[in-house]
């Protein structure tokens, strides 16, 4: 594994084989050897997408996370 940095990029430079083995084990997800090439390919696609979202030119502290939780059921407006 490579060294971590402070912007979440660590996993993008992980060896994808290591990533698959480590995380599948942590999740108790037994990935059949026949599926590995396909899973590794899609991890590659996701890694490229992660590089793109980390390249977004936004100020690091300025954007709230989009996920919102509203307790209780709301009445119709």
């Amino acid at each position, binding site marked *: 594994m490579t060294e971590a940095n402070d912007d*979440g990029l660590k*996993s993008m430079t992980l060896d994808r084989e290591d*990533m*698959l083995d480590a*995380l*599948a084990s942590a*999740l*108790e*997800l*037994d*990935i*059949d050897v026949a*599926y590995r090439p*396909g*899973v*590794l*390919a*899609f*991890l590659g*696609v*996701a890694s*490229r*997408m*992660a590089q*793109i*979202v*980390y*390249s*977004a030119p*936004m100020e690091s502290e300025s*954007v*709230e*996370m*989009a*996920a919102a939780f*509203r307790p209780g*059921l*709301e*009445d*119709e*407006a």
Partner: protein
Amino acid sequence: MIDPFMPGHELASHIRLGEVSAMEATRAALARIESINPLVNAYTDVTAGRALAAAGEVDRRRSAGERLGPLAGVGFAAKNLFDIRGLPTRAGSKINRERAPASRDAVLVERLSAAGGIILGGLNMGEYAYDFTGENAHDGDCLNPHDRTRMSGGSSSGSGAATAAGLASISLGSDTNGSIRVPSSFCGIFGLKPTYGRLPRTRSFPFCDSLDHLGPLARNVRDLALAYDVMQGHDPADVACAPRRIEHVAPSLQEGLGGLRVAIAGGYFETSGLPEAQAAVDAVAHALGATEVAPMRGAQEGRAAAFLITNAESSAFHLQRLRDRAQDFDPDTRDRFLAGALLPAAWLIQAQRVRRWFHDEMMKQFASVDLIVAPATPCVAPKIGQKILRFRGQDLPLRPNIGVFTQPISCIGLPVVSVPVFLGALPIGVQIIAAPWREDLCLRAAYVLECSGLVTSRRPT
């Protein structure tokens, strides 16, 4: 003989006037499904008995002088991730068909039925909605009615094919990254993906809750608007459903473009090197008087955010099924789901931040423009089994890139209508995009284009 391509609102009018009975119309629709569906594989379940009973009830109410709804006697069908009473909600999967039959319809099926619509059955789809092609290992591929060697598009494949083939006047689909707009584009019909949070998803099987939208597909704009209108209304059982008042769009369809500012999507959506998309976008932009180019800053990042949110969230949802029954997934979705289960949480959270940032960037654009025109797909329907997309001089994997132009728009929940432009024998869709909650503007523009004759559905030959 009832023309199976008669607009739904016209059929409803004939039924209200007693010129045609709902029973006659429904029998004709079921007979057509029986003869044509084997050619396109759009339906996975046909609810004939229920349809005939509902048609009888419409005719009884008319005879009794009771008021009939705007879709009285109009046949519709729903992607098989919508609960349909009496059917297991299979969501395109092998695993889900072991579920108990649904005890109650999805809210949107209930609302269309309350408006007089007659549900004809459940429709084919890509497994768990993770698909843009219309291919399905369990139920068979759904074929394009305009060329059965080509893809219908997905994941609302049966919705696109059934509507285009005259096997339903209106269909229901879902759109997480483009799954209403892609089959609308490939099958040459109209599709509406409303604003995120507009229509309730209650009693439909989810794909990715953060991005899932439901909406109608139809062969003409008025049917699309009528179906949308009767499905509006808050439902607190869907936590993402916004507590908005109902804002009917059908009454404003004929208001025209008067004063609307229309721009062409530039930057990420640039169509040079994509001759089919370019021809369609140019024609629609010209017809709508669009001259300015909207830069669409952040679209590439927004698309990547949608990819990661979808991949991580849907895989987490299916994690136990992936642990227990990975072998029962469609091979074309399984590896993507397995990979998505392994993504670091930081990627997902960064993707959510980018989603908000891209949304805010787009809101700045909507300060000076009302509608934006963009391609729905990079090309017309590919051949069944095709794996590579030629995209701006590069060979890319086809499956994930069919939705390259739809994904950024659903990422930030904008309302959009896909309108069909025929280039020779095959159609391609163009997206008409508005600011949140302005479905009315999308549909007004679509109606102008339909009246001009530029965008129209066609009978398959």
